[in-house]
């Protein structure tokens, strides 16, 4: 599946905007991303494994509320920095 990386996180991905990743769930994909790009995951997922307040993750245009969402190999995952003011 393809993970679309926002500009705020591309310092972790060597400026790549799209990353191919594998996993059965969103949690597995996030773990895989963090293994390849250490530190990335904690900027968007808290230590309690919740999505941070001003981050949104969409799977095929459906907003994921938590990391238990099941994934298919052809899924498109978008990480979005939501409006946070100031």
């Amino acid at each position, binding site marked *: 599946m393809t993970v679309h990386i926002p500009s705020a996180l591309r310092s972790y991905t060597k400026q790549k905007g799209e990353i191919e990743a594998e996993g059965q769930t969103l949690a597995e994909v996030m773990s895989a991303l963090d293994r390849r790009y250490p530190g990335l995951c904690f900027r968007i997922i808290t230590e309690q494994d919740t999505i941070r307040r*001003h981050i949104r993750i969409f799977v095929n245009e459906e907003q994921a509320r938590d990391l238990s969402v099941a994934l298919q190999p052809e899924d498109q995952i978008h990480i979005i920095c939501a409006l946070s003011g100031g």
Partner: protein
Amino acid sequence: MLTSRKATSPQSATSSVALLIGTRKGAFILRSDRSHRTWKLTAPMFLGHIVHHLMLDPRDRRTMLMAASTGHLGPTIFRSTDLGKTWKETNTPPAFPKVPEGQKGRVVDHVFWLTPGHPSEPGLWYAGTSPQGLFRSNDGGVTWKPFSYINDDPQYREWMGTVQDGTPDGPKLHSILIDPRDPRHLYFAMSGGGVHESVDGGRTWTPIVQGLEVVEGFNTDNITFHDPHCVRLCPTNPDRLYQQNHCGIYRRDRSEGRWIRIGKSMPNKVGDIGFPMVLHPRDPDTVWVFPMDGSTVWPRVSPGGKPAAYITRNAGKTWTRQDKGFPRANAWWTVKRQAMTADAHEPVGLYLGTTSGEVWASRTGGTSWTCMARHLPEIYSVEAAGL
């Protein structure tokens, strides 16, 4: 082991100073020449990041840690080992333990405070977070773990309160202090949640609030209600603490075991509310504060729009206004708790950063002030590093 006391000798008058500036939109370094007459501002580092604190390790004078987050992204710490030329992110930022499924665990919103460890413990750092948490690194800031028991202790959690019980952008653990005579003698403070002391390296802590007032006539025995804004330890008399509190300015001598309100001798129209507290590097009787308007809805600006520092040279018996060079009127800014500091020179150099993005300096211990930089983002912290 509280035996020896070593006076800090003045730094060479010909050494340069670097001001490490944390702002709401990135970090900057303002560096002086050897005469301190000309200053050069760097380009912003981590532009767009909220930088609460930027510290140089005084033990190696090369390592710098930066507490950073953004409006969107979670908190982290960046680390430089070449005086800020290059940076790497910490491997494991401060984070609370994950709780079992079904329980509500705490989440670090931002790292607020950084303190390098005792000179005998190279590589050791402490960090305070919002919401309140105490963390430690043993490897120069590469990895961080919760320190001591307080983060999960039921009594401390009660004193910390909820995220609604603290300052407007979250309750904070700050003022992590280390006795220069003994690395096991520690203090920290919480807004809100009081001031705490350990004499056994953090194994046990004791609240030290006797003598402090709390707002609106609440019970002073309840640690939750105590709101220290900034606590400092005298380098040449480590048994003396000074504190700028939500309810006034205080001094505490360990032999007396209680806080004495020394702000009552401030002028009535100015009051003794504020955030920063700056100590003289060699004279335990000399300290500076920067009062703000804490009346009615707490405007958090200079009283009357007329900024001024106040100095006492007799441990708080009397105070003298120091406003030469500052705007005479219509200056509606103030100085946050980490944004005023002193260097180790003689006479002492003082530096402060304002909520309106200006950096002011005094080369004469506060008797006159000069604006050295304007138009920066809102300044959260200023630290003076001797180079």
